């Protein structure tokens, strides 16, 4: 009967530092692209197309002579935007549903579980297909499609975490003090599953980046004149046998961003609470 480990470690986990730094760098790159890029992303220069990396264009140019570095910067911004929006949708809807299911049980839980099961049948691709047929393709479609699937993920994680806590005596003590289910969920359950949710959010963010890439690649996501990393790959698809560089650049960017986000997530998981593993932080792909 030893006491619980003290909350959080006193030192910073190396994964966390590297991951946050890397991810932060890319976010910064994206934010900067909102106000400035080395060249405007719409600037076409047919004469200078397919250039390799050089002093004028640090990453080279594409089939239309557009500067790849600028495209990567702007593309990173779009990818992050879509992934962040999708994660926000998932959390905003999923966490309350999961907490409600764990707090009220009974028919509420049944309903939330059925809804979760139902949403799990619609991976992002399928929703994107439906939305594209209805409204035409676009980045907003990607946000909604990926976001919808994030909802049952967060609901499941929130519910799992809350269930583990619901039977603890301090919840009963709060009930004795007259708090209702809702107040208990907000004041006691949510703060105690916050670390779990944050880690899951970094996972879903990285998965969102991958998902957006895939959707844009097949033409269901971001559309020109906007750009995203997936869209750059789509443009490269017809030429990559002859000009592999055009595919390597955006792909590598994706890999680096996702690795950084995952490292940050792993580091956060270890740093925030070693007990997270017991509550269960599942890794679910989008």
């Amino acid at each position: 009967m030893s006491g619980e480990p003290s909350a959080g470690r006193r030192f910073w986990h190396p994964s966390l530092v590297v991951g946050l730094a890397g991810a932060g760098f890319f976010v910064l790159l994206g934010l900067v692209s909102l106000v400035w890029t080395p060249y405007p992303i719409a600037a076409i220069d047919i004469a200078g197309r397919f250039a390799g990396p050089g002093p004028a264009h640090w990453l080279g140019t594409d089939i239309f002579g557009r500067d790849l570095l600028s495209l990567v910067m702007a593309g990173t911004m779009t990818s992050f935007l879509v992934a962040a929006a999708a994660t926000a949708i998932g959390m905003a809807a999923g966490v309350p549903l999961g907490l409600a299911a764990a707090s009220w049980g009974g028919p509420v839980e049944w309903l939330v579980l059925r809804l979760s099961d139902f949403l799990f049948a619609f991976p992002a691709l399928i929703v994107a297909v439906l939305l594209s047929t209805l409204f035409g393709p676009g980045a907003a479609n990607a946000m909604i499609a990926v976001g919808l699937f994030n909802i049952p993920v967060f609901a499941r994680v929130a519910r799992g975490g809350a269930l583990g806590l619901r039977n603890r005596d301090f919840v009963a003590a709060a009930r004795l003090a007259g708090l209702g289910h809702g107040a208990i969920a907000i004041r006691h359950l949510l703060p105690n599953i916050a670390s779990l949710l944050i880690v899951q959010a970094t996972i879903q963010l990285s998965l969102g980046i991958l998902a957006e890439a895939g959707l844009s690649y097949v033409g269901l996501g971001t559309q020109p004149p906007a750009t995203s990393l997936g869209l750059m790959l789509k443009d490269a698809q017809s030429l990559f046998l002859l000009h592999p560089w055009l595919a390597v650049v955006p792909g590598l960017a994706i890999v680096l961003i996702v690795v950084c986000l995952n490292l940050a997530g792993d580091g956060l998981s270890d740093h925030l609470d070693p007990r997270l593993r017991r509550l269960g932080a599942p890794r679910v792909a989008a």
Partner: protein
Amino acid sequence: MIAFLARRLAGLALTLLVAAGLIFALLDLLPGDPARFILGVNARPDTVAALRSQMGLDLPALERCGLWITGMLRGDFGQSYTQGAPVAALIAERLWVTVPLTALAMLLSMALGLPLGILAARRRGSPADTALMVLAQAGIAVPNFWFGMLLVLVFAVGLRWLPPGGFTPWQENPAAAFGGLVLPSLALALPQAAILARVMRTALVEVQGQDFIRTARAKGLTEGEAIRRHGLRNAFLPVLTILGLQFAFLIAGTVIVENVFYLPGLGRLIFTAISERDLVLVRGAVIVLVIAVTATMFLVDLLYAAIDPRLRTASR
């Protein structure tokens, strides 16, 4: 056990029913008249009306939905406007590519990922473990379709061992057909294998610390034997959950990867249908995907119950 099965089946049926209804309703919202689309812009109004009647387009929405669902249960998914062929036949034809690809990818990912995960767990903390996990970390970050492009560059363009794309039908040349699936399935399998390796490692490390492993060692087993005989099966449970979800995503991933290799699978069919606004085809293809995903998760649930007796029988 029967109760468990019955409940799960009922859940599956309910999900599919609601999904079908939703898909129908969504696509029904679209403006535009399929009959006019088929007959052309200059068709006479009464011909259009006659065709609408024939196609059953003047019936109320609920009835049309019901007809569609009952039709599907008979195997009739409707008729594609743009291609003039039964949807079921069009889809079935494409499944000959998509299904073997998905199956091959799943098998490869399991064959690669699970043993490596077990190895990493058994050698926890060693350089081998670190190396494997670094590799896995990179693997899960790689978009499968991009990886496909890289594979093509290396194996098709560089080494010329395999074709860069395209597909020979099974009937013509099974060996060539299979050859056309090797690179795509590798592209799909490797990121999946990385995920499975990580999950397997975490699950096994978790199990290694459990009390029943200590009991097994107290009985006279070495740690390795205890983990093999008792630990693996227990560790497989959380892996199974992930496996089910991954398989569902593999199905979606296949659709995307087909694009890299110009494979005539379900993907191409769907994307063409979308751009041509062929609703019947889109509807049919989407519901097939949804059925595939839900059926997979259902099977995983069953497998889970088969392995874990706590789900089948009541506790004391």
